[in-house]
């Protein structure tokens, strides 16, 4: 055929449109995947470690998600597994603080969590995207009930302390108005033929109609107070029944005010791959996973063990440690192989005879600062007064995020919310305060968004990750330069030692990074062990 531009050659868009029309959305998604649009988690289902040499042993350092994933699979494959854990509990950063818990941070401040029964905060990870298949697998395996995690709540706030008189704006309104104004601008440009170079005549009408629908524009392609826009941003008076039910449309925020406020930067909060619906949280706190894993592994885990030295030789690995109950008495364990999940700021200080390339990598990854605070209030005013059920408010105040509980709706009585989730420079400054100062500042700032704080606040806890004795930071921060230079060296097995954890993944800070890095590492360790064969 000569007319390649014509009937025989479909554009990618046309092709996708046809697939979508004829085969439904799942086929469309499959097609997009094969064309390279949509990425999937590397998790490939349960790992196969058949043929473990008889009597082969592994010492796993750290009972967080990476260590326990590895220990669980290695044990099931027939390896003799021992674990050393610094804390007196399993889970690592998979951790929930509940009423009655005590936590002592570096520097010596002890916080007593005074929440009522059943209330908690997750100082570390708090959500699991549906496509973190490894986490979903182990959560199911361990029988952990999941609840929905509302990443996006259209009725929560976007807040700028210097826009709209400091009054928080509903996400719904900012999103509808931003989208509506953009659609109107594009529609006008299209009508004025400004996009002719990019849009064919045939596409033009379809584009205009799509902008009208996408932006809730009126018949003149304008974004105005109308039933259409009200259906997105909400109404001045919402539709109801009977004589009193006639709706009154609401007035959109002007484009200039949206742009000037900076609030547009929060509109895409749920659009990134890791934040797309559905996300989940374990009922009762993220720590339920670590706790269940710990019970499953039982006596394999030795708690209160502080690793002081890791030494490999031709036949195995000896790990020296001290027990926090008898710190003066050095002890050791020995195994054929070692999987080490100790966070890098700590591992960098532990003597370990690996090659220079791995040693350099271990020292090359700074850890992010992060702070979270949980606040208990006398009543769930965010639900009762403001109709915010779960989800997140984003603010330019130093507290940065307010996370509302995604469970226990309308339960009456008290409630605990995440009063702050802070990173970057702000987190460093919060880290430098004492825990009571942090809580006080979180309440002060939060009251600018929810004035009810002042009357309803009861107690709170604040965790700064650089002061966590067991991690000394929140998660490893890679740059493209350090990745290029050190990442492979960090992940390569050095003799009989392999590293794992979120720091050894491209999913930094996510538990899925810990799980997939552990599976990747033990798969390679297993190959080595098999190649070496049974011990003489």
């Amino acid at each position: 055929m000569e007319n390649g531009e014509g009937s025989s050659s479909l554009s990618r868009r046309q092709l996708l449109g046809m697939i979508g029309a004829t085969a439904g959305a799942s086929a469309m998604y499959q097609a997009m995947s094969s064309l390279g649009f949509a990425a999937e988690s590397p998790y490939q289902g349960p790992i196969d470690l058949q043929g473990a040499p008889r009597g082969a042993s592994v010492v796993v350092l750290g009972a967080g998600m990476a260590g326990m994933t590895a220990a669980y699979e290695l044990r099931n494959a027939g390896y003799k597994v021992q674990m050393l854990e610094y804390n007196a509990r399993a889970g690592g950063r998979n951790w929930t603080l509940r009423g009655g818990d005590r936590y002592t941070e570096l520097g010596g401040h002890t916080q007593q969590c005074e929440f009522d029964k059943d209330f908690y905060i997750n100082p570390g990870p708090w959500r699991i995207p549906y496509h973190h298949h490894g986490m979903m697998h182990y959560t199911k395996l361990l029988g952990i009930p999941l609840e929905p995690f509302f990443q996006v709540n259209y009725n929560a706030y976007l807040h700028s302390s210097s826009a709209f008189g400091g009054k928080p704006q509903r996400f719904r309104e900012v999103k509808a108005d931003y989208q509506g104004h953009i659609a109107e601008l594009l529609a006008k440009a299209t009508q004025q033929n400004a996009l002719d170079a990019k849009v064919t005549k045939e596409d033009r009408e379809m584009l205009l109609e799509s902008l009208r629908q996408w932006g809730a524009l009126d018949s003149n392609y304008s974004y105005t107070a109308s039933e259409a826009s009200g259906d997105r941003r909400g109404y001045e008076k919402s539709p109801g029944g009977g004589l009193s039910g006639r709706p009154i449309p609401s007035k959109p925020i002007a484009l200039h005010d949206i742009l000037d406020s900076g609030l547009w930067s929060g509109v895409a909060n749920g659009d990134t791959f890791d934040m797309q619906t559905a996300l989940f949280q374990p009922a009762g706190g993220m720590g339920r996973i670590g706790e269940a894993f710990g019970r499953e592994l039982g006596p394999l885990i030795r708690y209160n063990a502080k690793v002081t030295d890791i030494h490999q030789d031709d036949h195995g690995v000896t790990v020296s440690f001290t027990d926090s109950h008898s710190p003066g008495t050095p002890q050791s364990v020995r195994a054929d192989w070692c999987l080490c999940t100790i966070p890098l700021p700590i591992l960098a200080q532990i003597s370990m005879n690996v090659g220079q390339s791995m040693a350099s990598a271990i020292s090359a990854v700074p850890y992010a600062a992060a702070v979270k605070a949980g606040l208990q209030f006398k009543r769930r005013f965010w639900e009762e007064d403001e109709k915010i059920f779960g989800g997140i408010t984003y603010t330019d105040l130093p507290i940065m995020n307010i996370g509302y509980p995604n469970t226990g709706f309308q339960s009456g009585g008290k409630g605990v919310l995440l009063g702050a989730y802070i990173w970057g420079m702000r987190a460093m400054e919060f880290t430098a305060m004492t825990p009571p100062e942090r809580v006080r500042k979180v309440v002060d700032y939060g009251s600018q968004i929810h004035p009810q704080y002042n009357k309803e606040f009861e107690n709170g806890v604040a965790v700064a990750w650089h002061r966590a004795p067991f991690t000394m930071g929140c998660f490893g921060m890679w740059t493209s330069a350090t990745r290029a230079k050190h990442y492979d060296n960090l992940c390569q097995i050095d003799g009989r030692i392999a590293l794992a954890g979120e720091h050894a993944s491209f999913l930094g800070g996510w538990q899925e990074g810990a799980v997939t890095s552990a599976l990747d590492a033990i798969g390679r360790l297993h190959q080595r062990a098999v190649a070496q064969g049974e011990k003489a």
Partner: protein
Amino acid sequence: MIKPAPSPAPTPALPVALTIASLLFMFSAYADSPLFTSRATLGSLNGEQIYDHICQGCHMPGGQGAVGAGSYPKLAADKNFVSWRFVALTVLDGRNGMPPFGFPTGSRINSGPAHLSDAQIADVVNYVRGHFGNEYKAEVTAEQISSLPHPAAELIGPQ
């Protein structure tokens, strides 16, 4: 000020994490507060203020350090402090999990750690070498700091 920073914006993008996030999740600047610095006011902090706002989060008030599974070095009587270069390079590049503070102004770096100018790094180096029982008298200058290697600027990349 909370207006979006002009491009190229020094927007922090913490990939993450535990929730965190991408560039999209954050506002481009943070509200001012007398207790908090901001990207705008960070540049006016002196050595002592930098220590109090940032360094003591790990090194603790009075430079006493801390011990857990690992340790934060006690800054008092640290023999390495005899070398101002050692201290300066540590602040510039980070060390063993400590974040770097010497990225060029306007760097787009994952998780947006604080950027300190050469003059500020000189000031905080002088502060820690002259406090907590340390008595190194020789003052380091911004020019000396600028002669040291700095970490390279980094564009936000996929994480």
